[in-house]
């Protein structure tokens, strides 16, 4: 039921919403989150963000995360799209959509999907600066905590290698 995609090109949130909901009359609410590239990383201006991923595993991880959301919440559909490659400031990075009969489940699932995606899907961000230097973004403790509030993992757990 979930639509999952990893792509270099931009996504069209309006078109994705329409694809998720058109012709349906059982949906009462759709939660949505769009993540975008901010110009500034800790006070330093970004030239771009480069997103690397693990082809094959990333698709599996996103499908497992979406399946877990469908197991936990009474969803009538969900969409997860993540871009990879070089992204300019202001560009879209990630789209999450979750549809349900009621707003509570739609918004809970949206939040769950983005929290888990941030900590369980194999993407790595690199910040590229105006002088050509680059820096890999460190994982944020706050993201780990945000994911942890959803409890035990079913869609794969990270452990030190």
């Amino acid at each position, binding site marked *: 039921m979930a639509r999952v995609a990893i792509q270099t090109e931009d996504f069209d949130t309006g078109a994705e919403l329409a694809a998720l909901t058109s012709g349906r009359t059982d949906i009462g609410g759709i939660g949505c989150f769009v*993540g975008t590239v901010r110009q500034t990383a800790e006070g330093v201006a970004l030239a771009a963000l480069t*997103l*690397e*991923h*693990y082809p*094959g*595993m990333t698709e*599996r991880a996103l499908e497992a995360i979406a399946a877990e959301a469908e197991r936990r919440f009474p969803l009538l559909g969900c969409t997860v799209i*993540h871009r990879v490659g070089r992204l300019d400031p202001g560009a879209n*990075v*990630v789209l999450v959509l979750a549809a349900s009969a009621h707003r509570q489940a739609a918004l809970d699932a949206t939040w769950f999907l*983005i929290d888990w*995606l*941030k*900590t*369980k*899907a*194999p*993407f*790595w*961000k*690199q910040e590229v600066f105006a002088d050509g230097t680059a820096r*890999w*973004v*460190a*994982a*944020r403790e706050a*993201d780990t905590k945000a994911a942890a509030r959803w409890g035990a993992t079913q869609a*794969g*757990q*990270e*452990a*030190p*290698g």
Partner: protein
Amino acid sequence: MDETLPLTVLYFAWLRERVGVAEERVAAPASARDVGALVDWLIGRSAGHAAAFARRDVVRCAVNQEFAAPEAALHAGDEVAFFPPVTGG
């Protein structure tokens, strides 16, 4: 009995940069029967490998595209990936 374990090893993000390759096919010794033992052996392969695994506690692993702990068993033909904690979204 085969004395070696043929594996495909992948590196991502700064691990890839330190090792210098994104992918390598290795014939690990039979002693490399889990992820932790494989890392012990990989560290001896080059200064780049040693640098990549200098802080083992921050390195994450997947075996056949599933997250795996250091004690996860390895089998001939496995795809073993090493990478930093993920930072997507």
